[in-house]
């Protein structure tokens, strides 16, 4: 239930006019280093990715599975800071004409100061944020700041969410709803089955925002399954796994294969 218009939602709706299912990918800023991050983003945009989550690394990524966890740790070890993450994000938003979101944990916002964090997001062209350990009940300051900056606070629907809970989350969300396809952390197997379809239609019934689906999306078949049931497919850990095993060069072919 959008209470204010956001650039993010508008861009998504515009893109959906041209494409049945948009593709959102995820990278960890500074992993394996900032130069590689930049090249990966470039390859992804060229391959046709529609929007991107940029994760600011955090030492305690409680909701992430082993692949992203390790990427966070390595980014920090090779010197990633919040400051450099902002610089990098600014460089990316200026250079590529797709919506970028920040994904990070609440402590990063909190330690910067929430107002400062949000207004810097606005000034560098970040269009929304995903903060997986910040339920709306804990995030009033954040929600207020995001509203003031006309940025999109994205929240998450899960298979455990009741319709009431979905509606509550929807009321506190802008841009889109991130619907996770299963219980658990990022980076594990998901079965794309009838149950999932039922769950997605429940999600659909409880929000009028665009619906992104993540956790475990990694093949053409998954993408086909989601077409018609969601607006955005999110490729999270799988990109990083490809980066890990095949290097920066592997990313473009992987995305190409998905969207072909």
């Amino acid at each position: 239930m959008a209470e204010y218009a956001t650039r993010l939602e508008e861009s998504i709706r515009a893109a959906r006019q041209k494409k049945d299912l948009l593709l959102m990918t995820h990278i960890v800023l500074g992993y394996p280093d900032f130069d590689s991050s930049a090249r990966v983003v470039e390859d992804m945009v060229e391959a046709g990715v529609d929007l991107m989550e940029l994760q600011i690394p955090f030492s305690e990524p409680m909701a992430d599975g082993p692949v992203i966890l390790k990427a966070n740790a390595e980014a920090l070890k090779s010197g990633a800071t919040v400051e450099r993450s902002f610089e990098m994000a600014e460089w990316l938003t200026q250079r590529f004409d797709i919506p970028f979101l920040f994904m990070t944990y609440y402590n990063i916002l909190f330690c910067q100061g929430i107002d400062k964090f949000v207004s810097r997001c606005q000034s560098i062209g970040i269009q929304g944020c995903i903060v997986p350990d910040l339920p709306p009940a804990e995030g009033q300051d954040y929600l207020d700041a995001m509203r003031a900056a006309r940025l999109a606070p994205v929240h998450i629907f899960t298979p455990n969410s009741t319709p009431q809970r979905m509606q509550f989350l929807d009321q506190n969300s802008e841009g889109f709803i991130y619907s996770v396809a299963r219980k658990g952390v990022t980076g594990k197997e998901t079965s794309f089955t009838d149950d999932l379809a039922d769950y997605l239609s429940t999600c659909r019934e409880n929000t009028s925002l665009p619906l992104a689906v993540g956790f475990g999306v990694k093949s053409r078949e998954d993408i086909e399954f989601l077409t018609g049931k969601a607006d955005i497919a999110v490729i999270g850990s799988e990109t990083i796994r490809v980066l890990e095993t095949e290097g920066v060069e592997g990313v473009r072919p992987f995305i190409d294969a998905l969207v072909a």
Partner: protein
Amino acid sequence: MRNSGYYSQFGGAFIPEILVSTFDELESAYLEARDDPSFWQEYVELMSTYSCRATPITRLDNLSDELGGANIYVKREDLNHTGAHKANNVMGQGLLTRRMGKKRVIAETGAGQHGVATATMAAKFGFDCTIYMGAHDVARQRPNVFWMEQMGATVVAVSDGSQTLKDAINEAFRDWVTNMDDTHYVLGTACGPHPFPEMVSWFQSIIGTEAREQMLERTGVLPKRVYACVGGGSNAMGLFSGFFDDDAVELIGVEAGGRGKGSGQHAARLAYDDATIGVAQGYKTFFLQNMDGQMQDTHSVSAGLDYVGVSPILSHLHETKRVRFEAATDEEVVAAMQRTVRREGLIPALESSHAFAQAFREAPEMSNEDNILINMSGRADKDIFTVADAVHDPKWREFIIDKAAAYRREMSNG
């Protein structure tokens, strides 16, 4: 609008969305249990038949004389089944787990004490059990791992991050977000998202309730000062809670001073000024973190105090000045432990020895009409590998080297 579970600005429940309903369920189960007098009765009954509650109060006759000030009393949580106050919390959560109809428990552990306690509870209640433990700690604390495995628990060595307690907590949450339907996460201290800090403190309050009554019965007056070590804060909350309404009783929390103030190698979040407010592991409190909010490495001779955060309730009591926070260094702690062993025949855990060290420092300045009370949160005999290293016992090394040689011989013969 603020969630419940705040203590001034500290606390909260910063949890992944997928756990929201699990926490709702837990909170209502907890609140119902709290409202149901038969639950506490069952809890006390369990603790007095399966463990040995009420644990006694022991007077340190020799050290009270030797130090020559206040009369020193000790609350004997070391006598609990499994050797520490951790038993109180796990048995309480065990009852709650059964009440919620769950069949599996998970837990983090640092020193191994909470892991052993949880594995014990799981064996007793017939739950499946998985314990997450930093890979570093698994290597250091094999005796505890051995017992957990004997109890039937699966011990998972966590090789992420600093491979210690906080990483084990993250990993336990990762398990929980997958298996919340049949699994309860038995958090080991008064930290984490609401309702854990309050709930764990509630179970541990059995310490303080008993202790207050026992001190009155024994000495006729309340103790002047009450000391407890502070890792996550559960034993301190447990003891202190018996005295919150007694304004004249000074409460002292003792943190791990490690290699000392300014060394950057310690775990003193409230006693030193290195920590700042942050949000991690699901709650808001003082953390040892850098300016970006990344958690820092901590150090303590005692694994159980070697943690970046601290109970939000204690952060609150620090701000309101109801509790005074001090730190004891590794060196002071080992000396206090050895002194207590030699003069009183008690073997305080290295964690507990922090409280002893601070009390020994303060007792001589006090009148011998004053009584003070130390929480002996656990015993050290399970930590013999750590203690033998801390006191540099050469015969222990020899013994281990000989034992290893014997194993090698057997292996090459068999």
